[in-house]
């Protein structure tokens, strides 16, 4: 019996020692890579904000981050309002869709102050290579047709559904999902702009003497 106990102890000990060493090694690597990972994520986001707002002076302009939850949505969206010379320049909206072929993808949509789309950028997508991945403007011209259009004055749907958007051949689901994401972005944009303007129109408080 005593022998069995000692061998059981040996099993427990050897497994514990290996896991402790493995855990400390991982902790060390995590510590080293944490900053570069955060940095690369931040860079990617900042880059996307710049890319979807062509003409925005990032040196002197101000970018404000606002979270909004459009009615009927379960997830909030992040809107980056850009201001130059203390006036609204436009906004970049981080939006998503759950109607994609692979479930979900995330894009960034840039609007000018009137709500016209200035550009789109794919943040995170896993659509079929050669078909659905054409939502990325690097692969196909599909997303370029949105530029210069205002979702408020058009039907943000593919032509098959009676809308104004030419779908990607053989990737209707991805195209519909893209419209869905842009539409969601526009809703968020409208809410944010309304808030922004009501704040601006309020008289700035002057310290009374």
């Amino acid at each position, binding site marked *: 019996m005593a022998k069995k106990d000692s061998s059981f102890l040996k099993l427990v000990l050897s497994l514990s020692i290996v896991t402790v060493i493995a855990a400390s090694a991982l902790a060390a690597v995590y510590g080293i890579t944490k900053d*570069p990972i955060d940095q690369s994520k931040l860079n990617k986001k900042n880059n996307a904000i710049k890319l979807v707002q062509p003409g925005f002076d990032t040196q002197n302009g101000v970018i404000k981050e606002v979270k909004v939850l459009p009615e009927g949505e379960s997830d909030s969206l992040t809107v980056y309002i850009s201001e130059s010379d203390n006036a609204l320049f436009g906004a970049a909206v981080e939006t998503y869709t759950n109607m994609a072929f692979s479930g979900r993808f995330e894009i960034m949509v840039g609007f000018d102050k009137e709500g016209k789309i200035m550009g789109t950028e794919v943040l995170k997508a896993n659509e079929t290579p050669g078909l659905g991945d054409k939502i990325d403007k690097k692969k196909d011209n599909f997303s370029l047709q949105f530029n210069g259009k205002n979702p408020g004055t058009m039907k943000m749907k593919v032509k098959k559904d009676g809308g104004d958007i030419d779908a990607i051949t053989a990737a209707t689901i991805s195209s519909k999902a893209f419209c869905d994401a842009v539409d969601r972005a526009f809703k968020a944009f409208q809410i944010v702009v309304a808030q922004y303007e009501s704040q601006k129109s309020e008289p700035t408080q002057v310290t009374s003497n």
Partner: protein
Amino acid sequence: MSKLKVLTNGFIKENPVFVLVLGMCPTLAVTTSAVNAIGMGLSTTFVLLMSNVIISLLKPIIPKEVRIPIFIVVIATFVSIVDLVLQAYIPALAESLGIFIPLIVVNCIVLGRAEAFASKNSVFKSFLDGIGMGIGFTFALFVIGTFREVFGGGTFFGLPLPFLKGNEVLILVLAPGAFIVLGFIIAIVRSLQKN
């Protein structure tokens, strides 16, 4: 088995993909382009190499009853390291390989070599086996990835090949294309081995 044989074994005679037909999940899923294939192959090679060496080193002190959990812990540690390093320094590649990097943990090539080779052989031989198998795996992925990317997407390492423009065989970059290409290559390898 001579040391040279150990090294070349994984490349030709026991190529993990074409002959042993192991690790099919990443093989089929990530070989949509040559870059993905090489990224995946090298990541797996690193994990295979390190886990082979460590397991071979630990072999005298690992009790037989818990060897599999210990192998898995060692492999999972190296996979997590690869995952973090890729995310930190090559984010574009980490993104396109996605879930398949963490899935190296359950790649049967890695566990298979730990159990069948590293736990029975010297550290140096396990090291050679890790390199051989890893390069064999990378080579196999590269062949499939290149074929699918060139004929399915009309590009090579992302560079467009103008003479293929408009003649891409789209199915090759889709899931069925992976099975088709792999099937043909395995058939060719088999018939070459018979002769």
